[in-house]
Structures are given as structure tokens and as C-alpha cells.
């Protein structure tokens, strides 16, 4: 999946092979089923601390990731389980991390909000709003400096557009012409507050692109191919020295903000309208309409259920992190002492 046209104006989704399309479906289903399992485990009091589910937004991580290459960098938020999955991190270690087990991705030390998989270029999930936007610039700068051709993609929420770091990050990325793509996942809400009630413009990211000399780019975040096409263009632009792009992807989270939040603050009609735009059944129908066998998609669903079950087993089977882990890996020599 690489493109030479400029798909920001001419999204090249027609060049997605059937296998590519099926893979997009698979990734979305994997994200969905994984998150549902997280929710179940949270209700069983096995997922500790907090957890922020991605249900409803799967087309964004999936479509963007498909446009990226191996070696590219990804920066995400606390709502980032799916972003790791689509970059290749297996389910088990993510789930084990959420359960606070020693076989977790970070041995249980980080937790749900701080997933990181450096081996796959995911340089972290960030839990303080806005931080990853400025940090992602640094990874992009390193790639630019070393001329590696790597592109950095940084995801964030609509609410993050109102914090100072957003502003600094955008200006900085543009003046240094960094190879970076910023993806605002506008799911219409911060925690419980509608974004429109606290934002001076309608489209919190796109309507601000001009403040950094960027074009406004808005995409239907529930249409995985549209996301893919837009992202592919932006990634291509970044990779070929064209500098940053700021994409606003419109979407909705089906559930509440975190943990057991039922999301009752949202008008029912609004919720229903967005549920009708659920990216997964809609894409499934589209694929079937294009001649993909329903059976093949069912198989993906079943395979994913199996994958999630296996991951759950693996996670549950992990022991508690050993006490010694408290004392390791503060410093790069592996230790944590503060005195000599």
C-alpha cells in the first residue's frame, strides 16, 4: 500500500486490493473485540486503575496505520490500545499490562494509559493532555536529522486542541518542516463535556490549521478507506519533505469516557445517529457489496474471538510483578538509586 499520487486531493483508495480491504476489516474487528474484552475484564475488577475504550473510533487507527510503513513512529493517548494492536503489538501483553501482570508489555509498571512498544515504533501512550504532540515532534526531528525517511504519526483528541501544547507543537512542526502527521480524533467530547461548548470554532483542529499555515483537512473518521486515503497522502507528503499535515477525523465513541462511565450526558438521538454510522458493520456491508464472501468475514470474526480468548488466558496466567521490579529501570543502567 504505497502511493505516488497526491491523495490529499485525490484519495487513492481505489488502489486498495481486496486483501488490503479485508485486512482493514480484520484490524477494526480486532480492535473492537479487544476493547469489549477490556470492558468485561474491567467489570470483573481485573483491569485495574482506569481504561479508555476505543469502540466506535476503530476506523481511524486502522486507516492511518495502513498508510504507515514499518519503522514509522506512532504517538498516542491513554485511549491507545487499538493503536498498538494495528501497529502489530500482540494482544496478550497489552491485556496483561492492564491486569497489572508481570507478563505485561511494561511488566505492569505503566498500566493502561502508558502502553509503549518501542520495537514497533510506538513511542508511547500519553496521559497528560497535549504532551505527546510536542514530544512527537522530537521523534520527527530525529528522523529528519538522520535522514532515515521515517514518518511520525501523532494521535490526539478533540479536547487536546484547547491546551497550550497543541499550539506550540503545530507551530514548531511547521517551522521546522518536520515529517509528521497529526491526527485529531474528534469524537465530539472531552470527558463529559461536549467539545463545541468549550471551543471557539466548530472544527477544533481543522479550523485552526490556518493558524499554522496548514490546509484544513477533515475526513469521515468512520470510513476506514477515507481515513486511509487521507493518511496516505499526508504520510507521503511528510516522507517526501513536504512537512506536517493536521487531519481532523470526525467520529464518536460508543461508550463512556473511561471505566464504567455510561456516557449518559449524551443525547440519545445523537448516540443513535452515530451508532448507525458504526464503522465496522458499515464496512462489512460495503465489502459484501463488493463481492467479498460473508463467510470470509465471519471467519475473521471467529479468528479474532479466538485471538482475544487466547490473549485473555495469557494475561490472566501472568503472575504479579515481582517486588524487585519496583526498584528497576528508572535509570538507563537499570537501577533506581539516587545516591552514591
Amino acid at each position, binding site marked *: 500500500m504505497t502511493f505516488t499520487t497526491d491523495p490529499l486531493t485525490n484519495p487513492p483508495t481505489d488502489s486498495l486490493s481486496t486483501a488490503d480491504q479485508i485486512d482493514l476489516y480484520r484490524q477494526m474487528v480486532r480492535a473492537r473485540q479487544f476493547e469489549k474484552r477490556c470492558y468485561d475484564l474491567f467489570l470483573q475488577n481485573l483491569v485495574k486503575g482506569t481504561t479508555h475504550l476505543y469502540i466506535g473510533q476503530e476506523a481511524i487507527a486502522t486507516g492511518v496505520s495502513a498508510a504507515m510503513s514499518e519503522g514509522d513512529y506512532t504517538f498516542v493517548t491513554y485511549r491507545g490500545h487499538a493503536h498498538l494492536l494495528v501497529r502489530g503489538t500482540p494482544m496478550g501483553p497489552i491485556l496483561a499490562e492492564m491486569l497489572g501482570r508481570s507478563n505485561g508489555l511494561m511488566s*505492569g509498571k505503566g498500566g493502561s494509559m502508558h502502553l509503549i512498544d518501542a520495537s514497533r515504533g510506538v513511542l508511547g501512550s500519553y496521559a497528560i493532555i497535549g504532551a505527546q504532540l510536542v514530544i512527537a515532534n522530537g521523534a520527527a526531528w530525529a528522523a529528519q536529522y538522520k535522514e532515515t525517511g521515517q514518518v511520525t504519526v501523532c494521535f490526539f483528541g478533540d479536547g487536546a486542541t484547547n491546551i497550550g501544547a497543541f499550539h506550540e507543537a503545530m507551530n514548531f512542526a511547521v517551522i521546522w518542516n518536520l515529517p509528521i502527521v497529526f491526527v485529531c480524533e474528534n469524537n465530539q467530547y*472531552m470527558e463529559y463535556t461536549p467539545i463545541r461548548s468549550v471551543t471557539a470554532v466548530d472544527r477544533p483542529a481543522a479550523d485552526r490549521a490556518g493558524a499554522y499555515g496548514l490546509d484544513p483537512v477533515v475526513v469521515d473518521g468512520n470510513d476506514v478507506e477515507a481515513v486511509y486515503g487521507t493518511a496516505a497522502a499526508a504520510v507521503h507528503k511528510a516522507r517526501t519533505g513536504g512537512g506536517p499535515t493536521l487531519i481532523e477525523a470526525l467520529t464518536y465513541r460508543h461508550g463512556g469516557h473511561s471505566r464504567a462511565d455510561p456516557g449518559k450526558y449524551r443525547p440519545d438521538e445523537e448516540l443513535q445517529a452515530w451508532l448507525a454510522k458504526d464503522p465496522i458493520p458499515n464496512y462489512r456491508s460495503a465489502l459484501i457489496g463488493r463481492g467479498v464472501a460473508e463467510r470470509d468475514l465471519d471467519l475473521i470474526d471467529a479468528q479474532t474471538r479466538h485471538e482475544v480468548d487466547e490473549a485473555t488466558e495469557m494475561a490472566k496466567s501472568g503472575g504479579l510483578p515481582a517486588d524487585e521490579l519496583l526498584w528497576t529501570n528508572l535509570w538507563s543502567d537499570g537501577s533506581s538509586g539516587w545516591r552514591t
Partner: protein
Amino acid sequence: MALVTYREAVARGIAQEMRRDESVVFLGEDVAAAGGVFKTTVGLLDEFGPKRVRDTPISEQAILGATMGAAMAGLRPIAEIMFSDFYAVCWDLVANEMSKSRYMADGQVSFPLVIKSGNGAGLRFGAQHSQDISNWAMAIPGLKVVCPSNPVDMIGLMAAAVRDNDPVLIFEAKGMYAEKAEVPNGEIVDSLGKAKIIREGDDCTIAALGMMVPRAMRAAEILSSRGIEATVVDVRSLVPLDVTTLMAAYSRTGRLFTVEENPRLCGWGAELVSIIVEEGFEYLDGPPVRITTPHLPLPAADNLEDLALPSVERIVSTITEGMKY
């Protein structure tokens, strides 16, 4: 009397003051319509309306800037910084502006404002949502800093903070939101800068703050069963620090143990130890010992978080050991 949770006490303290004084206003993220992510501000919007209880964007600098400016111009704002960890994104307003401006102006302006936050560990939220940062605040001249350890203190110290004409930071122990206590009916108003002796004993003094207070009390009971009688002081206020009460307790017992939630280096315990050894050297019967969270970020996993925080067991064993000196 009624059973009130620590969480409910926050809203009750704010409501009490908003009823009394129209210049008291309240702002923060998700505080109005949603009643706060910790449900500490439930009911305020309904009672006081959207002019006085306001939701904000995720703009902590704007929140504290508005708070500071409004205080200078005649309001008495209360702001919420949702998790105290987020002070880091608006620290300039706290550490450089609201704390210093009165002094720099040699008194031309005052800052009658309160900032409240969920603080500290216990909920497995990981390193960026579990910190006790009360020592960051204590290190800044010009801030008053209180950490209530129970619902009654929460109401009374909130009232005292709102009535005070200087910037007061209130740290709510997140791990204690669900704790209940009998609370008297009617108005409760406490004073800033007063520690409280909550248990008397002749052998040693345990000074504890916030969520560490009940742990220190439980430890004192266990120690008592082993023949060590501890005075327990709830420090309550880091600035002003009630050195008088603390020194009196310590000088009577000759031994001091502090129980701190913040990471080890440069906490209030270090300050207190330094004060008592300098000013009360003659009473020292043995080394003062600090019981703290190690100098580490907090891990997320249950067992590791528990291991990091001072536990009742660790308090008991450290004091038992220390008293052998």
C-alpha cells in the same frame, strides 16, 4: 450529625461558602454539568447556576489565569485542577504568578483564591495520575497548602481556605474519596495552619498527612499492643506549618517519625526533621526517621503500588526498629 463521605464533604464545603458569599465562584473541567470526574462537585451547578459554576476547556493555564485575575479583581474563585499531577501544565501560574505577585507589588493586590485537586495514590492510575505533589507546593513561597485527612476537616479547611485572602491549595486524597465519617450539621469553619494531635502517647511522635493519617493511626494501635505508645499528629497544613504543635509533641516524646506519601527527596518530612533537630536538639532521644514512598515514579500494578506507599506494616516495623535505638 450525618454520615458524609470525603468526596461529598468537598461539595458541601464549597456549597457552604458559595451560599454565604456571592463573590465565590467555581470553575474547572467537567465540574459543572458532570459534577466532577471524582463526583466531588455534584449539585453545585444545580444550586448555584451556570454563572457561578462553570465548565472549562482542557486549558489549565487558562483556568488558573482566570482564577488569579478574577481574584485580583474582586471575586473569590475556587478552581479545580482535576488531578494534581496536572499542575505541571500550569505551574507557572502557581509557582511564579499567584504566589509572588502580592510580594512583588508590596501589597497592592491580593489573591483570595483556592485551588482544589485530587492528589495522591491508591487507585492504580499509574505514575502520572497518582502523585502526591503537596511538596512541590510547599517549596514555593507564597502558597498556603492544606491536606485534609477526613470529611470534617475537608469542610472546615475548605471554608477557611475560601475565607482566607491568600492563594490556598487544597489537596484531596483521591484514595480517600469513599471514606465516610459522622459530620455535624450546620456551618463548619476551621483554621489554616493548625496541626491536630489525634492520639497521645509518650514514647514517640508520628507526624502524618492526608491519606497517611489513618495508616499512622492504625500503626499506632498495633504499636500500642506491642508496648510502644505513640502520639499521632495530623499535620493538616503544610503552609503555614504548625511547628508549635509539632514541636510540643516531639519534645514531649523525644522521638519523631514522619509518614509521607510524596516521593522521598525534599518532602515535608525532611523539612520537619530539619526544623526539630535544629530547634529541639536537646530533646532528641534518637534519630528522627522518615517513612516515605521511595524516590520513584509510582507503578500501576496493584501490588507494586501497594509496595511503594508507606503501609501500616512498614510504619509499624520501621518504628519498632527505630525505637530500638
